[in-house]
């Protein structure tokens, strides 16, 4: 018997669907379902209200006038505000600096920078922890050398510095990705464009502004979207480097979700944070998909 032609794609989809339904689709809907229940009873949006009004998520009493904790959601936003531009422009800058073949050792330097991406995040978190520890870390040592005693401390131990230690450390981890993407993008720009611009009398800044930057736009879209996603779901680095402390000063949404789940054994609140996190990550993901289309 011949199989109707229009059903053939469905048969090819079957193996993927068999895995997707129990391991992705079912858990997604179950998580959303759980977020509306508490102790087995339907509570509507009550869980969302409790979680969003908790100072652990948004603490407007302290933000922005006092030092952290500002709440996990605000910490994630601060993370994006610092980490996103820093990694995008650092990655671009390094890729531009090292793009020429005559730059000796450029591949070695690139490899070293990319190392942050290769190591497991847990190891990255540990390195950050020691990097900022007084007595063992290079960062406090540098500030001590400069005579800035206020910053020659264990950064991860103080509420004023813990969040920023984790963010700065993660810039090192993630810059390799941005640099690699921009390096590939730069390599794909035809040399003719630069030669034509030079013949027209354009200076270096004009060439960058009118040739390089516009042609790197698709790469920038990918880098920005991926970095946003990474920043929103950041967990391992914070878990290891600071544990979200001290006093919740470096808590982020993903870690708070884990706390609700594994410490409080409150699966409903954990589901609420998971749904919020998914909704937030969908924004850059959908934006990326649309831009690529």
């Amino acid at each position, binding site marked *: 018997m011949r199989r109707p032609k229009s059903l053939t794609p469905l048969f090819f989809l079957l193996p993927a669907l068999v895995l997707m339904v129990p391991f992705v689709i079912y858990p997604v809907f179950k998580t959303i379902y759980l977020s509306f229940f508490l102790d087995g009873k339907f509570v509507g949006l009550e869980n969302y209200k409790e979680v969003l009004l908790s100072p652990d998520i948004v603490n407007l009493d302290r933000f922005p006038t006092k030092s952290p904790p500002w709440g996990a959601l605000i910490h994630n936003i601060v993370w994006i505000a610092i980490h996103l531009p820093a990694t995008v422009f650092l990655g671009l800058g390094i890729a531009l600096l090292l793009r020429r073949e005559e730059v000796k050792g450029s591949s070695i330097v690139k490899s070293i920078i990319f190392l942050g991406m290769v190591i497991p995040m847990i190891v990255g978190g540990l390195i950050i922890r020691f990097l900022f520890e007084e007595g063992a870390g290079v960062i406090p040592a540098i500030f001590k050398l400069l005579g800035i005693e206020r910053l020659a401390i264990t950064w991860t131990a103080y509420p004023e510095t813990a969040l920023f230690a984790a963010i700065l450390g993660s810039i090192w981890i993630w810059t390799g990705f941005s640099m690699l993407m921009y390096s590939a993008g730069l390599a794909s720009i035809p040399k003719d464009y630069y030669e034509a611009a030079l013949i027209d009398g354009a200076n270096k800044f004009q060439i960058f502004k009118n040739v390089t930057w516009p042609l790197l736009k698709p790469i920038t879209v990918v880098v920005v979207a991926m970095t946003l996603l990474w920043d929103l779901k950041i967990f391992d680095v914070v878990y290891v480097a600071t544990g979200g402390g001290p006093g919740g000063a470096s808590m982020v949404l993903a870690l708070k979700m884990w706390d609700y789940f594994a410490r409080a054994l*409150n699966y409903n609140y954990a589901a609420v944070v998971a749904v919020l996190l998914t909704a937030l990550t969908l924004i850059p993901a959908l934006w990326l998909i649309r831009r690529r289309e």
Partner: protein
Amino acid sequence: MDVKKVLLGLFLVGVLGIAVVASGCIGGQQTATPTTVTQKETVTETKPVEQVTLKVIGPWSGAELDAFMEVIKAFEAQHPNIKVEYKTYRAEDLSTILPLQFESGDTPADVIAMWGWFIAEMGQKGHLMEFNEVINPDEYVPGILDTVTADGKIYGVPFTAAAKPGFWYRKSFFEKHGLKPPETWDEFVALLEKIKQIPGVKAPIVSGDSVGWPLSDVTEHFILTFGGKDLQLKLINGEVKWEDPQVRSIFEQRLVPLLKAGYFSDPIEWTSAVDLWWKGDYALYFMGTWITGMVDDPTDLGLISLPGVKAMVLAPDYFMVPKYTSHPKEAMELAKFLATEGQRIHVGTKSGKLATWKKVSIDDYWEPMKDVAKVVANVESAPDLDDSVGGEWQKTFWDQLKLLWVQPNRLDDVLSTLDAKFPKK
């Protein structure tokens, strides 16, 4: 009938069928078929006929694991038909894995070491075997089973315990600098001031850091010294608030002044802190008895408890047996061994642990631990505060103490947060 529609229908039914089966495997509690074994069988039948391999999960590695494996070897020697495979998992990681596995009627091991509060919680949910008829509660240090007991049912067995007896120092360091252990609070403060003046010493006391327990151990020692076991128990049960004047005064008059005076270092990763303290960067280190197994020369160790200490924390490791084990009889046998004769073997190794089973005598201990065991025997034992409360509050406690350590002027914030986050009954 339209062939296309039939095929499409069959296809969807197939997908849904497989999905339902798979979902059942990962999520449905009702699909779980817990093995039921009567406690009587466990006690009476000690010789399994067939060769059985038991999986055990615990938090130990390195030297701690070596000490534990001595116990396992002894068990295997007594039970030739049982082989034990050990895996290391941190309790923090297990807390993520176990609830899901239990809900689906599965378990990663037959005998698992875990937090006491977690065991009680899982027991209440019906995932664990009961030990009421397996061990005799009268044979244990009073109160040690409270953490793993819920509604009169004992869901876990205690293994050996670490005591948190006070501040450790090197006798050679004290001799070199003409220091002597204090006998009053004023002498203790004077000692700290004297140590602070010694060139090369960064701070008199090194503060251990990890997820946060080293700081909670110090704090509990202050509570037990100046408030006693009764206050500790009331705090555990939520009968006394953290902002209560009695609790506040312990912080305000005892701990916070020491923090403000810079007698404690900033929190340093606790194993690195051992090395720094041992080489003389710091003079005192508050740590559990397991430190005896972490230093080069345990005979050089001295111990200073806060003068007037009334009780000390005794923090046991607990084992549980999930109902979903394939070998319930053998698993219960091993758990019983760990809770009894296994303790005698364990305290004889370099584990730095103390027995919770009262039938173990001082003579059974590893030589450097004999003095510690005598010190602990002379005071009341108290349950570990944060381990007993557990849950999200435990992490909050650790985290707030980290904050207090670097910003002692935020005591009000810390105490009010501890009250606000305390589990509501």
